[in-house]
């Protein structure tokens, strides 16, 4: 099995440690991983702003870079959802279509494709899980609180393998953090307020770390935490699952 690692633009530039943890974790689990270097961005920042007609070149680049792999795995639910729903290629339409079905966010790749039943990791801390909206309602990484349906959570399933970890519960288990791409600046007041409220739910319930499968949300909450000079940190789930003994 050969996996192409997709490290979204902002993860590449600001959170390399999450990319490294994803790579190391997959390798630990016996997967052959490569990082195609011509990759850049999934195109979502443009598309969600209404400029999906400008994402053609991004799409071509992505298709070219990843068409040869069995799977594409990325540590970001939002980018993965965008690609699954919107990746198209004019040069090679069938390759893009085929690729859409082989792109996975890291957590779902571990639970659904690798179907792992155990994991060696240790992280003796109180951790709050942020359910990112696109991972939750788009990729169905967990059950959504609005639906009348049996509960499950893929991130929590994995985190429960981690030795010493204590998962805290939240007052609102899957409310949006308010990042929303360009929303975070276009609607500064509401976005910041949503971020503050989300962070305070975690802090009040005793989290030392906030984790999740999407760094864009974590980046947003980190911005709030740092401004508040809080000791609470954010950490991508890959880093916890890859944390040493």
């Amino acid at each position: 099995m050969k996996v192409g690692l997709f490290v979204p633009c902002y993860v590449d530039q600001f959170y390399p440690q999450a990319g490294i943890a994803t790579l190391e974790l997959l390798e630990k689990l016996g997967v052959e991983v490569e990082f195609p270097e011509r990759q850049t961005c999934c195109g979502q920042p443009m598309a969600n702003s209404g400029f999906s007609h400008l994402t053609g070149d991004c799409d071509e680049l992505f298709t070219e870079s990843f068409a040869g792999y069995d799977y594409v795995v990325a540590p970001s639910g939002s980018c993965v959802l965008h690609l699954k729903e919107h990746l198209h290629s004019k040069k090679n339409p069938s390759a893009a279509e085929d690729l859409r079905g082989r792109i996975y966010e890291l957590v779902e790749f571990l639970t659904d494709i690798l179907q792992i039943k155990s994991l060696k990791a240790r992280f003796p801390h109180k951790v709050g899980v942020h359910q990112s909206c696109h991972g939750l309602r788009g990729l169905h990484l967990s059950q959504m609180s609005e639906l009348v349906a049996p509960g499950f959570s893929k991130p929590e399933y994995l985190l429960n393998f981690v030795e010493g970890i204590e998962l805290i519960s939240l007052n609102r288990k899957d409310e949006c953090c308010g990042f929303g791409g360009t929303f975070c600046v276009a609607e500064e007041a509401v976005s910041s307020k949503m971020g503050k409220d989300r962070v305070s739910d975690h802090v009040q319930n005793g989290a030392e770390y906030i984790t999740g499968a999407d760094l864009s949300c974590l980046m947003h909450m980190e911005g709030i935490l740092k401004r508040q000079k809080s000791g609470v940190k954010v950490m991508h789930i890959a880093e916890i699952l890859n944390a040493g003994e």
Partner: protein
Amino acid sequence: MVKEETQQQHKGLAEHSGLADIFNRDEQRVNWHDETLWFVRSKRDKAAHSLPEWELLRETASQIKHNVLSDLDTYLQQFEEQALINGVTVHWAADAREHNQIVHSILKKHEINRMVKSKSMLTEECHLNEYLKEHGVEVIDTDLGERIVQLAEEPPSHIVLPCIHKKKEEIGELFHTHLGTAAGESDPQVLTEAARQHLRESFLTRRLALTGVNFAVAETGEFVVCTNEGNADMGSHLADVHIASMGIEKIIPRRKDLGIFLRLLARSATGQPITTYSSHFRKPRAGQEMHIILVDNGRTVQLGREDFRNSLKCIRCGACMNTCPVYRRSGGHSYHNAIAGPIGSILAPNLDMKAYADLPFASTLCGSCSNVCPVKIDIHDQLYKWRQVLVKEGHVSPVKAMGMKVMAFTFAMPRFFAFAGKAGRVVMKYLPFVVSNKLNPWYKEREMPKPPKESFREWYKRERR
């Protein structure tokens, strides 16, 4: 002052972000508003979870509405035919102006210049109250929440809970001014009793009552009006003339379909198992005149937009507003449209793209709205699709358009991307949230992410190649 500013924004080029900014100046109030509506969302969750067949009900309702929208003309004709047999006068209005003129003509015919009206979002959409006021007709809104915002000279901020943005102390002040309650009185029971007495006099003396319509049954020609206060019944039973205004999408095929819709409506709206009064109106009583006005006002245009036609399934429960994290923290008035929240944001651009170009962007696309919608409208997908339409139609600032082009260019050039990234993460300035200066809205309440020593690709080159 805030209210004046808000009103000014309404008159000029209102923008959701600006109005939301004003709303957020009082954080305690935002917290209160958010908690109040979250409480309603929680009640909805409890009510939904009490029915194991909830998701099946949603799916069935969605399919019934799908059928209706696919054959709307036939159902409307069937409804009209039955209503005529029942002795009801049926009017067709192409737009808001025609609707208002029809109402006015009925008033004139009976030489009536004072009327009561129960809750009808359609008449808000048509700005009927303003129109009638200009023509010398006094309208008293009889839904308590609507009466409160009417006294405050404000539009409703929520389609089910019109005055949810007002605290009881503020309502006390209004009632003190308009209904003569004691100064400082804010006990809900006392205030409600004052409103009851005031409205009773209106019910007894007005000869014309207008109501909305929740469901219109094609097979029988009857319509159903749901209220918790019984005010639609009080008004219409005591009046000589009853006018019911309805959007043409309110049709359901059969009476038995109500068994699905009534169960969904109240649970989704307020978490009640059923609305207190679900009143069926079929024919005028002896000596009474009954009119139905069927209003298009853009609905057939929306029906023709394939990506957006599902929005016409809406049964106006307001669940998408209660769950929306943006609505809860920006208030209904920030949407500067008769219908606020997520559903308002996909309906409004159909009526006027330029005026409402901001609304589909007033969302994080979190998707909670689509999940609570009792008729399974793909609300957040439609918000995304409206964004594409609005950009293509040119309803977006040239600065933003240029920024997006630069961003697209950068991401299309892997080497430039890598180079720009290396040069102090310069590339990231095209992502709008990381411009390192204090004018950047990100920075107002949030710190920037700290650029690491090396990017992932630099690390990979060094370590793995």
